[in-house]
């Protein structure tokens, strides 16, 4: 069995207790606890070092489904992949899916995840109609925008700190086929991205861009714009490709400026003439799921992901500044992702998505050099009035957190006193790092 670790390869230190039945009480443990799904959070938001992780993998049952309304009730450990495998062939799709299907419903709620359709659909939490919260005092509360609305708002985007989501009810949307009409448009720089994005958001349900994180100057932010809509015709699902697995940790030397540069150039060249294609939803939404355990290409030392959102009202300077700092550092790996968030408000107290543009990319974790870059980037985000994404974070300072999440004290008030995460202890600590 794989060790319990976050996607950035931070190993869990402490106990782990698997859960199997939604009507069971919480296990009796010493100290604090935190629900842990499939470990797709990159940093330490999914860890409770020294406490006990409640492994939700066994809570993986569907409970009910209403074909008329698309309402699906399922246990908190069900993954979006399991929902897709069963319901996409029936013509239903989760309203919001992130870049991997290996996230649990509980995790999707706890991080109030977003997808390529944020400009149309908002966050995952906006489509959660009800959920049951099991608290450490043994109480169970069904929460929704109408029942226990405060606790509902705190749980959506609440990083698993308000209790265990034993089950949730979500609204699935109808899809005409399992296929996506996927169009790729190359663009030359950041300005072109914003222009394309603004135009595409009105014509396409899904939009996202991959950019070359090493390009600088006039070509800063050049990349490939992806946009897509569900295809109308009832195409039959083709043969599914079996995912390949990265069998072991690759040596650190594999990732360097040269290989990253070569990869970016090759990727851009290979995809530039792609135009419009008809593809199954899997490669469109979950390109990296085709390589299981891809996080091993970063070696045993793992990776750190940087993801921020920068508000529109400060103009494009902020995005340019961040991209330029990344390109200058030469540490970024492979492709960076750029996506504009729409104006739909998130239902959660602590949701990350907000109107603006989000930048995400991976860095191999290489000690002080990497940390210095993250500090520089954090400074730029803070200056711009932006936010960092807790699900991806490993190093955010309490100051940054307070600025980006002013409603954190409300969550602290509604937090289950026994539920804690390493992330939470870090960002709510009183003292600042030197």
């Amino acid at each position, binding site marked *: *069995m794989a060790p319990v670790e976050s996607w950035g390869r931070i190993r869990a230190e402490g106990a*782990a*207790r*698997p859960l*199997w*039945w*939604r*009507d069971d009480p919480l296990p009796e443990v010493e100290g604090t606890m935190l629900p842990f799904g499939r470990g797709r959070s990159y940093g330490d938001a999914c860890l409770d070092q020294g406490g006990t992780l409640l492994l939700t993998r*066994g809570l993986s*049952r*569907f*409970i*009910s*489904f209403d074909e008329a309304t698309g309402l699906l009730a399922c246990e908190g450990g069900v993954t979006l992949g399991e929902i897709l495998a*069963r319901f996409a062939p029936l013509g239903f799709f989760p309203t919001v899916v992130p870049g991997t299907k290996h996230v649990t419903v509980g995790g999707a709620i706890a991080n109030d995840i977003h997808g390529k359709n944020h400009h149309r659909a908002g966050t995952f939490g906006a489509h959660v109609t009800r959920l049951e919260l099991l608290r450490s005092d043994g109480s169970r509360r069904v929460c929704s925008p109408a029942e226990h609305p405060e606790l509902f708002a705190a749980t959506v985007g609440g990083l698993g700190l308000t209790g265990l989501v034993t089950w949730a009810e979500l609204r699935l949307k109808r899809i005409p086929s399992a296929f996506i009409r996927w169009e790729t448009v190359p663009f030359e720089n950041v300005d072109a991205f914003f222009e394309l994005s603004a135009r595409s958001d009105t014509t396409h349900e899904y939009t996202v861009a991959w950019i070359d994180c090493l390009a600088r100057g006039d070509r800063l932010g050049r990349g490939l714009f992806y946009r897509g809509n569900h295809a109308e015709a009832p195409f039959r699902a083709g043969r599914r490709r079996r995912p390949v697995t990265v069998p072991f940790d690759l040596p650190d030397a594999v990732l360097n400026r040269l290989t990253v540069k070569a990869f970016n150039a090759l990727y851009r060249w290979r995809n530039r003439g792609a135009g419009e294609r008809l593809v199954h939803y899997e490669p469109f939404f979950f390109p990296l799921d085709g390589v299981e355990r891809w996080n091993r290409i970063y070696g045993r030392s793992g990776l750190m992901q940087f993801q921020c959102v920068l508000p529109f009202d400060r103009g494009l300077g902020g995005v340019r500044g961040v991209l330029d700092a990344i390109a200058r550092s030469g540490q970024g790996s492979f492709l960076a992702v750029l996506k504009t968030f729409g104006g739909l408000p998130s239902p959660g107290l602590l949701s990350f998505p907000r109107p603006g543009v989000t930048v995400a990319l991976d860095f191999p974790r290489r000690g002080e050099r990497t940390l210095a870059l993250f500090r520089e980037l954090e400074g730029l985000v803070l200056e711009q009035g932006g936010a960092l994404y807790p699900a991806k974070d490993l190093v955010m300072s309490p100051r940054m957190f307070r600025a980006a999440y002013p409603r954190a004290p409300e969550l602290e008030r509604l937090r289950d006193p026994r539920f804690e995460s390493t992330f939470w202890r870090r960002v709510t600590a009183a003292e600042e790092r030197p």
Partner: protein
Amino acid sequence: MNVVVLGATSAIAEQVARLHAARGAALLLVGRKPGRLAAVAADLRLRGAARVEVRALELDELAAHAALAAEAEALLGPVDLVVVAQGALGDPAAYAADPAAAAAVLHTNLVAPASLLTAFAARLARRGAGSLVVLGSVAGDRGRGSNFAYGAAKGGLALFAQGLRNRWHRTGLHVLTVKPGFVDTPMTAHVPKNPLFASPERVAAAIVRAADARRDVLYVPWFWRFILLAVRAIPERVFKKLDL
């Protein structure tokens, strides 16, 4: 396909049932706890099962077994596959003070499954079709101090299944003995996990493949066949000194 799952709320059995549900099977789930059976049944219906029936039953009660086999046919029609998955690990530390506890482990893991297998085998053999899948354990391959009652029961069960296989072979009835190694289930919740542990999903997938292929014995994950080959080869003189 009509499938009967005995001990249907066990983690491995539930995953086996999911795979059959996805193929559109009709299932009868038998177990002790009605609430849990209902949760499993609802899930299987949503996963594509043609039908799911549940019976809450104490499978240790031998007297109910013949009627259960008859009821399964009445509910589902001809039974194609029976999965015998009920079991209990027991606690050897308690046996000295309460010898009946050791006997109870033998009853749950050997006597009751043997009775169930007998009841279903006769019906399946009469039709000359179908499979019996018996969940044994690698613990049944060699007696060990840490789980001697459980190991003896699983060893006896494997031998019983082997005998059934031999007896009914000509009728076309297939018997598969499954010998899982460490599996991450509620039964092993108290055991610290190591890389030898397999997930119930992985074990279930191997079981379904082996049953489809009408194999006789399945070690799962596969490497346990070789581990046990080595474990069985250790002379008793040496083995008894090992603290296993």
